């Protein structure tokens, strides 16, 4: 009983529960396709039933070559022509660029196994760097450049749009739009080796005003820590060499190999959408992320003592 009720908690599935126009038109198509499939299946089943168990005239009529011409050739040709015309038109619609200057521009780079996120200005230069989360304003088209420096990944937020691959050496353009505020789960959809299964992200849609405030705040790095433990954490962060891979704006840490940590404390998740983000999980992740996400590029820091781990976690928690 509980099982059945719980099962419904997954309903409607994201593909059928669109939150914006780029997913919405596909949902309509999906329902029609499901209807078509069920109808054709029923026709075939009925014909099979007659063929196996039927009697008399109906069965005899099903027995000639004519039925192949009608049900096997003419019928599919007509149905498929209709579907094809719709499908092609919709494809054009979905790949039409947004009106000049209206879209928010971003760049997301799929990397093994996390997402580099850049907010771009009109000219295409980076306004602000982040990772594993996209914050977007409701009601505005977001045009995202998809790239990859290593292997093929695929960007997929089912409630906002279909997926598009990130192919090394190429630059693809996807458009998403959310029409209601909320958090939308996304995941890498192209097998990219090792912990591909643990390469998630989320899109958080804000009301436009709230989003504008959020962006304005984000343009400057958070204030340097004042509390002693956090300050010590900041020193340890640099001393342990974290800055070789991670960047924290306003500090000497300027590595680009791993996620930008300027605002890491404000993120919902750790490890690319897989763990809740708080001091405890941060300590676990830094201490031995290999136990959590085997194969990921961050080495375990077993040399750090508990106090040191906590200090770094406190420091990072404050980057918000």
């Amino acid at each position, binding site marked *: 009983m509980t099982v059945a009720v719980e099962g419904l908690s997954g309903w409607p599935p994201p593909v059928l529960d669109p939150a914006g126009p780029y997913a919405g038109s596909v949902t309509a198509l999906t329902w029609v396709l499901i209807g078509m499939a069920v109808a054709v299946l029923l026709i075939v089943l009925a*014909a099979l039933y007659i063929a196996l168990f039927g009697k008399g005239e109906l069965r005899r009529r099903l027995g*000639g070559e004519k039925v192949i011409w009608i049900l096997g050739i003419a019928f599919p040709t007509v149905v498929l022509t209709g579907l094809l015309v719709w499908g092609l038109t919709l494809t054009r619609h979905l790949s039409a660029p947004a009106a000049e200057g209206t879209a928010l521009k971003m760049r997301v780079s799929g990397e093994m196994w996390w997402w580099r996120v850049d907010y771009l200005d009109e000219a295409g230069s980076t306004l602000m760097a982040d990772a594993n989360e996209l914050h977007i304003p409701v009601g505005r088209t977001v045009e995202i450049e998809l790239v990859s420096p290593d292997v093929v990944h695929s960007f997929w937020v*089912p409630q906002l749009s279909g997926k598009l691959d990130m192919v090394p050496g190429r630059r693809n353009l996807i458009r998403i739009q959310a029409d209601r505020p909320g958090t939308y789960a996304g995941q890498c959809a192209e097998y990219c080796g090792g912990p591909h299964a643990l390469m998630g992200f989320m899109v958080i849609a804000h009301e436009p005003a709230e989003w504008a405030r959020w962006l304005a705040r984000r343009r400057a790095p958070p204030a340097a820590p004042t509390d002693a433990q956090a300050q010590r954490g900041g020193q340890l962060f640099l001393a342990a060499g974290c800055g070789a891979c991670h960047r924290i704006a306003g500090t000497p840490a300027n590595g680009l190999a791993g996620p930008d940590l300027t605002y890491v404390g404000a993120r919902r998740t750790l490890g690319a959408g897989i763990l809740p983000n708080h001091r405890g999980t941060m300590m676990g992740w830094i201490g031995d992320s290999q136990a959590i996400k085997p194969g990921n590029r961050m080495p375990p820091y077993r040399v750090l003592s508990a106090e040191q781990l906590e200090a770094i976690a406190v420091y990072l928690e404050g980057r918000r």
Partner: protein
Amino acid sequence: MSSAPIAAGGKGSPGARSETGFDPELYRRFPTKEERPEGELAELERVWQAPRGWRLLTAVNNNYIGTFYVGAAFLFFLLAGILALVMRVQLALPLQGVLPQETYNQFFTMHGTVMMFLFAVPAVEALGVLLLPQMLAARDLPFPRLSAYAFWAYLVGGLCFFASLFFGLAPNGGWFMYPPLTSTAFSPGINADFWLLGIGFIEISAIAGAIEIIVGVLKTRAPGMTLARMPIFAWAMLVFAGMIIIAFPAVIFGTLALELERALNWPFFDPTRGGDPLLWQHLFWFFGHPEVYIIFLPAAGLVSMMVSSLAKTPLVGYRLIVLALVATGFISFGVWAHHMFAVGMPRLSIGFFSAASMAVSVPAGIQVFSWIATLSTGKPSHNVPTLFVVGGLVIFVMGGLTGVMVAMVPFDWQAHDSYFIVAHLHYVLIGGMVFPLFATFYFWAPMMSRRPLSERLGKWVFWLMFAGMHLTFLPMHLTGLMGMPRRVWTYLPERDWEITNLLSTAGAFVLGAGILLFLVDIARNFRFTTGDTAGNVYGGGTLEWLPNGLYAARSIPVVTSRDPLWDQPGISEDVEEGRYFLPGTATGHRETLITSPLNAEPQFLQIMPGPSVWPLFSAIFTAGFFLLLTVQAYTIGVVSGVLAILCVLRWLWETDRVVEPARVDIGAGIQVPTYVTGGSTHGWWAMVVLLIVILMIFLMALFSYLYLYGIHGRVWVSPPATFWLAPVLAGYGGATGLALLARRLLARETSTLWSPATNLIFAAGTLALGWAVDLHSWRASGLSPESSGQGATVYGLVAHQGMVVFVALLYAVYIAARNSRGLVSRPRNTSFDLATMFIAYCGVQGSVGALVVRLFPGVV
């Protein structure tokens, strides 16, 4: 020697009733009336006797090889199925720890690879080996040793490949192995090499089988079995083999290129050095999508045969089914990029790939409704094969409908690479191939077994499999729409994916239980035999149900209908009593009747090779070659490769012998030659098919060159100076000319200094010279294969040419050796003809390749 045994007043025009000049009136002499001589049958049995004891390994009869082949394919089905069960346990609930991440990644890669390469393709090819000769009333397939070789290479190589799993060395890049994930930067271990080289011998094996099947269907049909009277399975296998010939070269070139990138750092797919990862996807899917139809068509052919037999009525819409098979064979080559809708192609290309994907579903619809119409016309019996046929049909239709859904680009952008696709592809393959295969097991087992399989157990097997199949894969559609991507070793609880996943896991075990029960049925009831079989339990109307021995039918009947056993009363007895063609052995050797491709008019008697240990050895060494290279044991790997070549030459040595008498009576006073040359021989056909394979590999290399040029052309370096073209073209052109001259010289032997065989060696030498200059000019130009995509593809073409030049040299020496032993007959000789053809082709290919890579960048 004329290939027309008995002229019916000159060769007919295309509008005539005769294709070769054979007078169809002669068929009226059959069945013959006179008594057959004493001991004729015993002699036939002696000639076709299979070796016993351990020597059974040297058997080449299609009954044995076919059965081994089916058995091996089924073994791989079970192994890959077990992998699937373990994966389902891992995915039953979120965050399970049954399989660690790395092992899971190896498991799903192996599951896909083994199911596609080691089960599905070999299984249908095996059924071709097993059933085709009997259906066509041929004594055996035209190249029995080739099928033995194909089988052993597959079995030995396949088992070693599978064993890589036990050492943690199994490939882990997914069965379609996308670079750059699979290039050395991201897959430094030898796991990916196992895939690339491991698949190598499967490709060889598949192509060997395809050659066999094309020649078998076109050249060894029973007299009178015109194209319009061929069993549908033969049509399906013809299209199947044709598709392998066109599709497999793409993956052959692809795997070679990726292996070259991995081993020698040639950047075919590396975007930072002028390659492109999408090139692999194009090459792979140009093979990969037709592959699905390569698997489906033979099974559909079997379904067409079974539906007709089970409903006891001729197939409704035979011509439309042939149309469907032929059309699928073509259109399936226009749908490869629907696996790439999400890579960001121009939307115009996306559009017509979508259109082709829709078009390919029309032939499937034709077949489905033709089967339903046949069932309605006849009186379908409600037995196990019917259950599997009908059940498979329902499953296949469901898979086809989701196929139409994903052919719609916007929907595919959502469904692509999600569990929806996992559901779709399993519906198509299980409904389109696995259920028909089980129907086939039940339907044709009585042809090879003393007892039929059990109807009672079979019904349990069916219902368990049918229910299990739906329980496993139906929920996956929903799982996919819920956003679960494929190839994930685990998932987080908050995504609400556990209910559908748990159902799928339960279903997998129900499906597994059905298959287990089938094994019980096999163990209890399947008893292999070639003599006292259970016989025509289901009342089939085609020739495989004639009384059978290792030699297939005692005599080869004249066919006047699509279902001769139904329409030609007394045919079984007449065949058994030897009242048709070739009631015994005419020359004392194994032999089969070669007929013409359209109308199946008798042309000549082909002498067939018997058991031999050499195909087995060459197969072992071939597999050894690939596997030893994989584990980087280069020296013994190369030794193994040389041994494989020597074994092949040794086996060929015994073939193509002129026998006495030159003309024999094949029944009712009709005389045909025992040795002919030229366009009607089976060897000529096989060579043509082989050259098409080589040409396709060449075209794939050219395509790669042009493709990369289209992306990075602006930074390509200029080719070597044009004057180099003169010696290169002279070498290649000269080789073609000399080879053609050699064939003319063969008729008149002059001196040993310039004998035809010497001339052939000169031809091969000229070819090698042209190639050496070609290679040198590129090296001198400063372009290296490691430098860029241009270098990789140019040297890829040169390397491909180098490979055929090497074979040409070997071939010329082999012919010279035959000549010195007096084995090259005059005025014409088949081996000699084929060698000239091969060398002439090499010259043309070399010239085209050299011209394109030099002229193209300059012109455009």
